[in-house]
């Protein structure tokens, strides 16, 4: 199921909970969409961690580094990654400088930091620990809370779709486990940090988050790297399960810096009955980033807001597949992404709404807006909708914008110089989503990062604007 642009077997897609397969008319969508939803296809299924590692290792050993090809569009290839030259276990030297210089200082519920393959910091407020909140490495969680963790680990994440996914499942060390028990409400964010402090590292990040019934909390993941020369890898797997009535705001701040960092990750958020999730990844840098992000509503009354911003620059390659999956209804969805690209970067966003049979009274909408700033950058937005229920509404829309010269002149007449006016337009473009983070410190961090990227691309933007 990895790369099938010809889609020979996509007459039916597997669904969770033994529901009938989704019927798809041959040829209808296969040209446009390359990827498939996980749709509940987890590897867990009662197997132990050891068994899963073993199965994954077999896949790892028998497969090549992945290439995703889409005729007429682009390819995402990880074959320039020299995987054999990377090391999974290197000595960690405490919390890397990039972590302290990037993460906002403000009240937090807890923090766990993994550098390369080792967890170097775990911090949880005592009051929360007393109320049953668990924040620790996933390794430790398997030792101390084996039953709880085993029931959920890889429940809906596969381990065998490609070599790096298998590598993650086979080799992960450290990892993060967060459990917010039933009814516990936490205002401040839990921070989960994956940091790469030098070249030559293969980091296999593994996160499992459980939100008990009626819990209410925030999770923020930070993916950061020092600016180094040479290759590194982050192959991540993230799963978050929200039980009945739980509410969670998930944010992800990703900027792998100027090193040649490859990131191939799968992230799944599963929303239970009457639960709600607001999820906003900010993908702000990485040499080659490929993300499968899936938000699945699996319980009646589940609702979600799936947001995202991206900014690719220089030679970066970003490939995002975002899934808005509804397994049952009534349910709600709202997907809204915004992105831009400068330099010679390439960004591709494929958004899929999938409504399974029986997910009646689901209402969802997907919109993707992109802004062109650079003559050689490219953004592809590919929305698709797979609907297998008849009492639903699902639609998608989007825009492709360029800098509005009239708006620039308008702001110049108020005293802003041209770069400042451009910044106002681009920040204004992202602002509706950034302000949804509802976290002033994180919002500021994202705004600053966007500002830096604009400043770096100033000449490029100028050339483009005056050439039109």
């Amino acid at each position, binding site marked *: 199921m990895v790369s099938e642009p010809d889609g020979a077997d996509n007459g039916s897609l597997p669904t969770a909970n033994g529901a009938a397969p989704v019927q798809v008319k041959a040829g209808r969508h296969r040209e446009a969409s390359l990827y498939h939803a996980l749709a509940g296809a987890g590897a867990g299924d009662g197997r132990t961690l050891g068994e899963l590692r073993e199965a994954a290792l077999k896949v790892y050993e028998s497969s090549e580094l992945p290439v995703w090809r889409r005729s007429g569009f682009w390819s995402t290839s990880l074959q320039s990654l020299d995987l054999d030259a990377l090391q999974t276990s290197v000595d960690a030297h405490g919390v890397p400088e990039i972590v302290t210089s990037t993460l906002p200082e403000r009240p937090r519920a807890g923090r766990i930091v993994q550098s390369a393959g080792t967890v170097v910091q775990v911090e949880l407020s005592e009051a929360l620990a007393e109320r049953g909140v668990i924040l620790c490495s996933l390794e430790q969680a398997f030792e101390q809370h084996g039953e709880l963790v085993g029931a959920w680990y890889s429940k809906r994440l596969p381990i065998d779709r490609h070599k790096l996914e298998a590598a993650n499942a086979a080799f992960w060390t450290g990892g993060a486990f967060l459990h917010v028990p039933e009814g516990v409400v936490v205002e401040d964010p839990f921070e989960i940090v994956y940091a790469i402090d030098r070249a030559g590292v293969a980091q296999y990040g593994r996160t499992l988050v459980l939100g008990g019934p009626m819990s209410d909390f925030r999770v923020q993941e930070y993916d950061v790297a020092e600016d180094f020369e040479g290759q590194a890898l982050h192959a991540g797997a993230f799963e978050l399960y929200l039980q009945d009535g739980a509410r969670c705001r998930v944010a992800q701040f990703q900027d792998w810096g100027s090193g040649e960092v490859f990131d191939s990750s799968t992230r799944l958020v599963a929303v239970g009955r009457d639960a709600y999730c607001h999820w906003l990844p900010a993908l702000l840098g990485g040499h080659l980033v490929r993300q499968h992000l899936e938000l699945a509503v699996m319980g009646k009354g589940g609702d979600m807001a799936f947001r995202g911003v991206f900014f690719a620059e220089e030679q970066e390659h970003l490939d995002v597949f975002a899934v808005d999956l509804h397994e049952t209804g009534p349910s709600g969805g709202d997907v809204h992404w915004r992105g831009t690209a400068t330099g010679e970067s390439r960004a591709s966003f494929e958004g899929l709404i999938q409504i399974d049979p029986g997910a009646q009274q689901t209402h969802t909408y997907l919109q993707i807006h992109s802004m062109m700033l650079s003559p050689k950058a490219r953004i592809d937005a590919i929305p698709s909708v797979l609907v297998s229920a008849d009492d639903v509404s699902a639609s998608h829309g989007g825009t492709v914008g360029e800098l509005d010269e009239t708006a620039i002149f*308008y702001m110049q007449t108020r005293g*802003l110089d041209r770069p400042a006016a451009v910044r106002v337009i681009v920040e204004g473009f992202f602002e509706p989503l950034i302000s949804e983070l509802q976290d002033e410190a994180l919002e500021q961090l994202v705004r600053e990062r966007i500002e830096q990227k604009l400043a770096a691309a100033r000449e490029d933007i100028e050339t483009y604007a005056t050439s039109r």
Partner: protein
Amino acid sequence: MADLEIKDLHVRIEEREILRGVDLDINRGEIHALMGPNGSGKSTLANTLLGHPSYEVTQGSIVFKGEDLTEAEPHDRAKAGLFLAFQYPVSIPGVSVANFLRMAINAKRDEPIQVKEFRTQLQHAIELLDVDKAFTSRHLNDGFSGGEKKRAEILQMAMLAPDVAILDETDSGLDIDALRTVAEGVQRLHDEQGLGALIITHYQRILHYVKPEFVHILMDGKIVLEGGVELVERLEREGYDQIRQEVGAGVAGAVAAGDSGV
């Protein structure tokens, strides 16, 4: 020497000459009205004074407070003390009126404005323009009605306190209440801050609320008639056609093929 000296200004857009030798002097504290029929070049003059990149000055000069701004960047003209209230203000999504104002004010200063000072100024301007306080937290011109957009223009003018403001058909499309608020705002900025203004209009309506001391009639890219407020009254009685006939063959028949946007 006048604060703003426009000398023999010739301007073209693409291959078409729109202004064909405009001379105009404006000082702080003076209210001027520039009137003219559609296509006479009024908006071209407004945009050229602020340095719109689509308009090319082929001859003549714009000197402001002794500094030649003919080739200056728009933001440098703004910093020098010029302001343009747009005929069609542009919406800036994602940026609140207050934040935008703060940025614009800070662009003119070395040190950022103190929060308290900014609030005081903003409060004063809000009262002047008779707008709701919530107005300033809305995104600039985004979803604003025509009247709200024009109020926002005058609000910016009040906050940025220019020496000379050009108001490009600020009166068009306004109902009488909005027109009165806008006009009174201009008048008060003139009275309180010594604002100099060039009110560009096709109609006489706004001039019932703001009294210009100097009136200029622009036709076919040239100022053909100048006088005091009595010229407005005359225009009201006689219309542009009568004046065109009177000022003679030099302009008659040479009506540019432009529309009101020129």
